[in-house]
């Protein structure tokens, strides 16, 4: 028990204390945390199922620029722990998770607010030339805060044992439990509709219906749909690469006299030549690799005031130490990194750290590069880079990955969380390393080269199609409600469901998904949508209109 509680507490702490992105960023996803909580509490299957159910609600939610629309860390960890403690049906996981998520938003705010204090402390340490202190400030106090805010409560929750939780569930009438199961059956429609709303450009929407009816009619599982959609996407991607038009990045440029001209910008044939300055101080490959590895801790002391500034200063310690011998100079050079910085820092973002390294190297070799030049480049690029990174990763690739993982998990396969974890790691390490080294080797022009190449747009288009088919397939298989309504015609009872099924299978899940999507389009606040889902599910159950089909 104590060991379980300690492990869960450690997991919850790491869920917020993002000291190593490749792992901690994955703990934002309830599919991962749910499985781990299950493992730690001796019931990995229930944990995985609960985690997958919670994950589905939050599939299409994007946290951009230091905001958090829902605390999926707390939702996943605490929600799963509650399911295991109470012995409830994992389908009820969403009922536990949603209140925890809301409470978690408060915890996140406290964490992000208090962390600003350590940044000021780091400023003072840097003034005194204490570089080691900066590194400690990046990690230690934020760990303590996360342990206090996340670790302690989760420890207490697991230690509190299952008696009270079981009697709590036992005290709830069976009918209410059944009604909440119906709510749990509808809730995935929210995550699915959010993703649909995000990916659904009008001309791509048919792919959603394609995915939906493919599953509704054939009963194919999501893995099969993913494979088919991936093949379609690859064909379209390659076609885009070959055709004249697709290979170039098009820009719709507005002119002052209000005309829109579509300009195609193509990549110059040869990358710009590297600066011809004779460098006496070079950053060695091991130094660069170490610096890239430090980028994983950019969000260790994430805070409202300067967001990732301290993390960036911390990662730049490595190259700055390699370039300058005197500790005073090192501290001086690091100070420019203690300014507001926020970007997507694990996949596309490392390109900016690579560019910083190349500029820092030029500066150390006497080139005319001022600290202002470095910061103008960094602050100019952090926005567009975050825009691309968030769009491709959080908007498209991660939800597809975890959506497929969830479906595999819900059919009882541990491959779901394991595969999504492994691919997630491959993406972070692969893209991150490539971007960092490209940024270092090509300097400021690297980003424009990558953008003009058009690859990113082709990835967005191709994977939007995969995403929409997967989302359609999930709407068909994971929104699990039907109608038990019967009516008498002539001499026998006919169920309404069989009438619907004779029209087309899955009409109720489709209708519910469309309804939630419509609410999102009408800009209804997600909190209200959640309340509406509870109301529809509970009322639907008690009126005998809706039943749980899981």
């Amino acid at each position, binding site marked *: 028990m104590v060991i379980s509680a300690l492990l869960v507490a450690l997991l919850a702490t790491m869920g917020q204390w993002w000291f190593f992105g490749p792992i901690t960023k994955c703990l934002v996803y309830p599919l991962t945390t749910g499985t781990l909580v299950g493992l730690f509490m001796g019931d990995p299957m229930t944990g995985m199922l609960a985690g997958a159910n919670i994950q589905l609600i939050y599939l299409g939610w994007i946290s951009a620029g230091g905001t958090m629309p829902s605390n999926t860390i707390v939702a996943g960890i605490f929600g799963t722990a509650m399911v295991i403690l109470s012995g409830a049906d994992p389908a009820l996981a969403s009922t536990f998770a949603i209140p925890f998520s809301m409470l978690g938003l408060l915890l996140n705010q406290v964490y992000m*607010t208090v962390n600003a204090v350590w940044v000021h402390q780091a400023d003072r340490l840097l003034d005194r030339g204490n570089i080691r202190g900066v590194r400690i400030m990046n990690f230690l106090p934020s760990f303590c805060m996360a342990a206090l805010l996340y670790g302690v409560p989760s420890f207490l929750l697991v230690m509190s044992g299952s008696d009270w939780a079981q009697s709590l569930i036992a005290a709830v009438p069976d009918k209410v439990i059944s009604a909440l199961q119906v709510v749990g059956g509808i809730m995935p429609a929210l995550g699915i509709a959010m993703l649909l709303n*995000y990916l659904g450009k009008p001309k791509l929407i048919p792919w959603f219906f394609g995915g939906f009816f493919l599953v509704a009619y054939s009963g194919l599982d999501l893995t099969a749909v993913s494979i088919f959609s991936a093949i379609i996407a690859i064909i379209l991607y390659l076609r885009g690469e070959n055709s004249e038009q697709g290979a170039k990045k098009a820009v*719709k440029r507005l002119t002052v006299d209000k005309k*829109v001209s579509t300009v195609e*910008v193509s990549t110059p044939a040869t990358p710009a030549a590297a600066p011809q300055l004779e460098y006496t101080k070079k950053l060695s490959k091991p130094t660069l690799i170490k610096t890239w590895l430090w980028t994983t801790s950019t969000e260790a002391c994430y805070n409202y*005031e300067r967001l990732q500034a301290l993390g960036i200063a911390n990662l730049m310690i490595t190259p700055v130490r390699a370039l300058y011998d005197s500790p005073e100079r090192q501290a001086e050079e690091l100070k420019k990194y203690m*300014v507001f910085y926020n970007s997507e820092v694990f996949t596309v973002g490392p390109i900016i750290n690579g560019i910083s390294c190349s500029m820092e190297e030029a500066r150390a070799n006497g080139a005319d590069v001022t600290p202002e030049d470095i910061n103008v480049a960094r602050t100019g690029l952090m926005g*567009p880079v975050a825009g691309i990174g*968030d769009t491709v990763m959080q908007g498209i690739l991660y939800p597809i990955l975890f959506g497929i993982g969830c479906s595999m998990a819900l059919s009882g396969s541990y491959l779901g969380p394991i595969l999504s974890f492994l691919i997630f790691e491959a993406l972070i390490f692969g893209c991150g390393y490539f971007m960092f080294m490209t940024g270092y080797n090509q300097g400021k022009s690297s980003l424009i080269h990558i953008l003009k190449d058009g690859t990113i747009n082709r990835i967005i288009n191709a994977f939007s199609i995969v995403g929409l088919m997967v989302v359609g397939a999930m709407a068909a298989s994971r929104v699990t409600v039907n109608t038990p309504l019967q009516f008498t015609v002539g001499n026998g009872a006919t169920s309404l469901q069989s009438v619907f099924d004779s029209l087309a299978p899955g009409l109720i899940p489709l209708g519910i998904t469309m309804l939630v999507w419509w609410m999102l389009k009408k800009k209804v606040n997600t909190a209200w949508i959640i309340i509406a889902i509870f109301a529809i599910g509970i009322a639907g159950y008690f009126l005998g209109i809706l039943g749980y089909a899981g």
Partner: protein
Amino acid sequence: MENLVLTRIDDRLIHGQVMTAWIKNKHAEQVVVVDDTTAKDEYMVEVLETAIPEDIAIGIFTKEEGAQFFSQGLDAPTILLVKGPGAILALVESGIDVGEVDVGGMGARQDRSQLYKNISISPDENSQLKQLLEHGLKVFIQVMPQDKPINIAEYLR
């Protein structure tokens, strides 16, 4: 002004929040950046033009060009992005109706102090925001579409 769907102060200009949330939320088809330094920086113009989704039209103008652009009205839903209140004030003083002003991102800097959560302003920006209020504009803090807009008047010094 018709078709001006969002006027936003955001010193990161185009980034994750704008690209993943606001463009979609406001159904914008055009993004106009009004910022003197950015418009004169060929490199940044190229970065912004290539970073924005292909189906969104983008214009990057100086204050004077921006005033000229907006004086002709807008044909499609447009988001106006600036780095600070100064640019908005310049547009307003050139007679442009910018509508309500959303303060979405003003990061901490040496000359700025914290106003509200991750929004910081300098004394200059404080007085510029006050002038915007005096022009009768509604100015609010709203980082993401789902956040509740917060009236900035109570927080200004």
